[in-house]
């Protein structure tokens, strides 16, 4: 008999990073070695993480497929499942189903400049592809990351931001909303779209990957257009409420497109064809 598609892998939490007061990153290892060996995923895919007794929640895999042997996820305490996840400790078991969905076309991007733009808790779904391309650094030209959050304490992956900042082959611009800075803050102050306009990266031979809250997307798109980016060269990852992850439960569709099967990665060209239902 074939497998139960609703049955998650059992994963052990091997590390927990407290990114912000309400955001955690878990490093998860397969409890079963056989499953670990068979498992593979690509940048952009997501999974269903579960606390047994509380339910499942959907997030992107936040670690890079180039880093083998574990997966990572970053989540904000928001609902029933994420609140219970946040109460777990190292050594505890969580369930994971996946990977689901499509991937960032990083092979197509080879030889191009990459511009990553993220806001707040939207860096985790991009972290996977960022590390993936950094780990294959020689295949890509300039890598620029623009990342903003409301306040300094809302910035996630603080250690990695430091690492990217120190690397000569990556250009990192961090910003916080006006009023969100601390006396020690040395990054930009201002909303992501304004900062992007100021930095004005070239759109020549460049792919932009954009992810953030709807309001940020709304104001960043005109800036990208002004900079000369074409719709097909802008990528984002959508999220909609999901239960199953494989196009059956009927929640995530945007028109006839299933975010769980056809997404979560879409080019802006594709997004323009979707009805406004996301």
């Amino acid at each position: 008999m074939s497998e139960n598609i609703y049955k998650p892998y059992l994963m052990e939490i091997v590390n927990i990073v407290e990114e912000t007061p309400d955001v955690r990153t878990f490093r998860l290892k397969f409890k079963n070695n056989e499953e670990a060996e068979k498992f593979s995923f690509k940048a952009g895919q997501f999974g269903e993480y579960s606390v047994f007794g509380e339910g499942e929640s959907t997030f992107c895999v936040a670690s890079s497929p180039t880093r083998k042997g574990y997966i990572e996820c970053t989540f904000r305490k928001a609902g029933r499942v994420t609140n219970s996840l946040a109460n777990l400790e190292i050594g505890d078991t969580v369930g994971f189903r996946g990977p689901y969905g499509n991937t960032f076309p990083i092979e197509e991007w080879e030889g191009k400049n990459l511009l990553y733009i993220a806001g707040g808790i939207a860096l985790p779904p991009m972290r996977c592809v960022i590390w993936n391309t950094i780990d294959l650094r020689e295949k890509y030209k300039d890598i620029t990351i623009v990342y903003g959050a409301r306040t300094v304490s809302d910035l996630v992956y603080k250690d990695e931001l430091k690492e990217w900042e120190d690397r000569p082959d990556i250009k990192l611009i961090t910003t916080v909303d006006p009023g969100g800075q601390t006396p020690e803050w040395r990054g930009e102050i201002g909303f992501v779209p304004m900062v992007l306009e100021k930095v004005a990266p070239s759109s020549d031979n460049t792919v932009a990957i954009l992810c953030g809250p709807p309001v940020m997307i709304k104001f960043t798109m005109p800036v990208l257009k002004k900079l000369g980016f074409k719709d097909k060269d802008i990528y984002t990852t959508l999220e909609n409420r999901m239960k199953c992850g494989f196009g059956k439960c009927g929640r995530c569709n945007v028109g006839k497109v299933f975010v769980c099967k056809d997404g979560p990665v879409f080019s802006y060209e594709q997004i323009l064809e979707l009805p406004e239902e996301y």
Partner: protein
Amino acid sequence: METTRKLIRKQSLEKLYAHLSGSRKIYAPVTAANKQVDYKYNPPYAEVASDHIRSTLSVKNIVFPKVENLFLFTNNRTESTITDIELFKIPEVVLWGAHPCDTAAFDVLRSIFCWDTKDEFFSQRVEKLTVIGFACHKSDDYCFCTSTGLSPDSSKGSDILLSRLQNGDYVADIITEKGNAILDSCPGLFEAAPDEKPVITEVKVKFSHEQVTAKLANAFEHPFWIENSLRCIGCGACAYVCPTCACFDIQDETKGKNGKRYRSWDSCGFGLFTLHTSGHNPRQVQSQRWRQRIMHKFSYMPDRNESLGCVGCGRCSSGCPVDMNISEQLEALQNI
């Protein structure tokens, strides 16, 4: 396989029922005190309804139960375990007395549950199912199977289709191998078929589903949706009585450390169905949800699942507390 036609006498029908229920569970329609018809497991033959137009609920419960366990678990934090459902334990069931719209719905459900990723829970239940369909000799204004490409005597989804003759006997069309196996197991109950035509009700064609599908391709922003869904109160009655609606929710329930993860019916008509934890809701108002319901069945499914999402049973309309009549709306939609 080629269909063969046999005769089964009124008296032999009861024997067939007894024969089938001897070896497996039988799911058959029963008329309740309040005149509603509901399917029950193993009712005595005397109680089985045969003159009803439609049961209150569809028969999808048999392959897609309203609550179905996905697995059991024990949460010991560091040493949690999962116990799989033993799908082979799903019993053999005979569905008796379902009308062609209901039997055709199994194919529609399959197109949802088995596209791309195969759902074993559904597939196993279908595999264990034998369907004795009954062609319709009665219909009402809610019926519109003929508008969805079916007919009151369609054999789609049936293993054996019975059609009533004037004198109360039935002709039996043996459609599949499963049906053939039944014929082989009790050949004495069947006789050579007469030349007589069975009594089949006439169901008026109300709209062309191809035309509706074509119109819907460009109707997402049409004012039709708001105008025609004002009276919709946003309950899930239409989805829950529907033979093809397959949206579900997944939930956990525990007692102490032990628990189960199960799925249960859900409906796209509910306001919180698509609500994100952030508070954002892609379908904020009822007209958007009503549009999703129609679009899913008549536009998205033909496009993605190569199957129309509706069999024209009319339950959603007859069960609606505010008379949201789907065939009336589709008729209007084909002319927008």
